[in-house]
């Protein structure tokens, strides 16, 4: 029977090509979008955790309220003791200090006066301690464009785009003009060790990275830090565990009103990340649903046209005694077969395109000028085992639904009138 149907599909292409192409297109887009979403979820989580928020973040309550403005005057103090507490209370996690800061980077001319200058958004992390996990977390070796990583105090990394705009090369001097945590003016000389490109718009436009000790000294933040980031030892974000940790930590200070007490927040509580995580979680289902609905409507319509074209054929089959249910199921089987073929072809194409994105990627930096969370500027995808079957879900369900609805007309045919219809 299946062989008979398959022959019919191949020989009568008028009945199979259009539904096949629709299923192919739907499966292709489903697979491609699924792989893209999977990669984006991984990248957005990783970038936001490693570069900005950690899996959990400890700040003062006052700092947390105004975190978007990087209020270093409200930073945590005596952070060494605080980190010891955190290490003892939460084994399986490691903790790093970060300082985010803003300012003006000024490039001197030969007289020591301003040649060029530009606003910068900086991040200070422990780059020089031999045991520091920061170079690995920030993947600094991968993002170096020119020059090298800082090797001694007083060296910074500058975004390559900013370096080109300011007309500076690695090895040249730059002065950071900023504010200390007490609000005083801070002017500090640095040497540009290298230039970097993260592939993240927010960092690449005006970012600088400096060693924590240098910035603590420049901003008068001895044993102070704006943020203490906590990472799981396996570097994976465990949402439930992070929430439980934050709850336990914050409960210690419940009922106290001091705005400089520490508060712990999870990654998903930062910069609208919860909305992004929820969106990404449901996006795959939404994409499949949309494609399935659209394909069902198109295939229903195609099946209706096919039924009209095959009106005579179905009539003859019923007239020679074939059961209506049998005709109906054979048409559904035929559609499912088209669905399988279309889904297989669409999945193969989708996987091929996803593989290209996984390896090469597409640069979309121009579209990401004003986003507040860290998002990669190169579109990439990630092929997972589920990507091999996800295209079949809308492919088969849509063909089944489309034909099942359109084929209901078979049951409305009056057997008594078949010969009369066939005569005409």
């Amino acid at each position: 029977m299946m062989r008979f149907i398959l022959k019919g599909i191949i020989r009568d292409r008028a009945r199979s090509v259009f539904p096949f192409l629709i299923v192919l297109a739907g499966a292709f887009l489903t697979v491609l979008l699924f792989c893209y979403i999977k990669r984006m979820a991984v990248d957005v989580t990783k970038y936001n955790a490693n570069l900005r928020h950690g899996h959990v973040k400890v700040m003062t309550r006052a700092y947390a309220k105004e975190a978007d403005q990087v209020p270093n005057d409200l930073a945590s103090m005596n952070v060494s003791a605080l980190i010891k507490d955190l290490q003892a209370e939460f084994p399986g996690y490691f903790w790093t200090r970060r300082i985010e800061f803003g300012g003006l980077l000024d490039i001197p001319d030969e007289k020591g006066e301003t040649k060029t200058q530009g606003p910068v958004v900086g991040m200070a992390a422990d780059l020089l301690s031999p045991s520091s996990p920061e170079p690995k977390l920030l993947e600094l070796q991968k993002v170096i464009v020119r020059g090298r990583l800082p090797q001694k105090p007083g060296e910074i990394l500058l975004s390559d785009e900013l370096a080109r705009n300011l007309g500076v090369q690695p090895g040249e001097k730059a002065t950071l003009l900023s504010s200390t945590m007490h609000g005083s003016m801070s002017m500090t000389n640095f040497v540009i060790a290298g230039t970097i490109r993260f592939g993240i718009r927010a960092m690449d436009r005006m970012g600088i990275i400096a060693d924590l000790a240098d910035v603590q000294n420049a901003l008068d933040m001895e044993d102070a830090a704006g943020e203490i980031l906590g990472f799981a030892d396996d570097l994976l974000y465990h949402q439930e565990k992070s929430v439980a940790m934050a709850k336990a930590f914050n409960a210690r200070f419940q009922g106290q009103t001091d705005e400089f007490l520490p508060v712990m927040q999870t990654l998903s509580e930062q910069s609208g990340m919860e909305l992004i995580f929820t969106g990404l979680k449901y996006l795959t289902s939404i994409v499949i649903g949309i494609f399935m609905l659209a394909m069902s409507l198109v295939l229903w319509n195609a099946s209706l046209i096919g039924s009209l074209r095959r009106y005579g054929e179905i009539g003859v089959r019923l007239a020679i005694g074939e059961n209506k249910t049998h005709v109906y199921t054979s048409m559904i089987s035929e559609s499912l077969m088209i669905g399988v073929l279309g889904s297989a072809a669409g999945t193969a194409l989708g996987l091929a395109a996803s593989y290209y994105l996984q390896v090469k990627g597409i640069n979309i930096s121009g579209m990401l000028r004003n986003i507040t969370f860290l998002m990669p500027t190169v579109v990439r995808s990630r092929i997972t085992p589920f990507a091999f079957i996800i295209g079949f879900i809308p492919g088969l369900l849509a063909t089944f639904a489309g034909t099942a609805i359109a084929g209901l007309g078979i049951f409305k045919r009056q057997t008594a009138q078949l010969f009369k219809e066939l005569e005409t």
Partner: protein
Amino acid sequence: MKRSFGVQYFLALALIWPASIVFSVLAQNPPSADLILERADQNAVTGNKIILSQMTIHGRRDTRSIKSKSWIQGNDKTFTEYLEPPREKGIKMLKLGDQLWTYSPDTDRTISISGHMLRQSVMGSDLSYEDMMEDRELRKLYAARVTGEETVLERPCWVLELTAKLEDVAYYSRKVWVDKERYVLLKEERYAKSGKLLKTLDVKSVTRVQNRWVQDVAVFKDALKTGEGTEFKIESIEFDVPIPEALLSKASLRK
């Protein structure tokens, strides 16, 4: 005699009565807003002056004081050297017209402050560089109207509402309280175009120095920040003193 006195009395009345009417009308009707502003500007913007002042910044965590000495020529040339505390000691600032430079001895660098940096706070105070750079002649920047009379610091004041005549002013509108007799500004509110209050100035004390009225203690507050604002206190002021031209130049920053 009697007649003579009567004539004199009549003559005196004839002369004094119209004058008293004129004075009473003047006392009830305010002078034009432009005139009030002009007098206030004249009082604020003078020739040369040297000021030793202390700025007390009330932060959310602590309070700190910064001492500085400024040499001011008119309203467009100012050289300031910070004297205390040790971290700020030796930092210098030079304002020449609409340009501003700062010098720090630690870096031996002279840096031009421009663009978005002008909106940043000066030494963590409630004052921005933009506030510091502002041309104090309000009459040139704002159209004024008198809206009432109030008492501030136990002094009768005209209340003026100022609206910007130009596009590139830091504050679209202001409300100022000007002492009716001394023409000294005793209170000020600065607003954005949206009507949002941005900064306030409350003069706490006015003193007489070399026949001029000087606001020697004032609190300047950024209304968008929490905290108690920044208190400015003039420890000494000298008017009309010669200031060497070499001091008001970029070269003097590194000396």
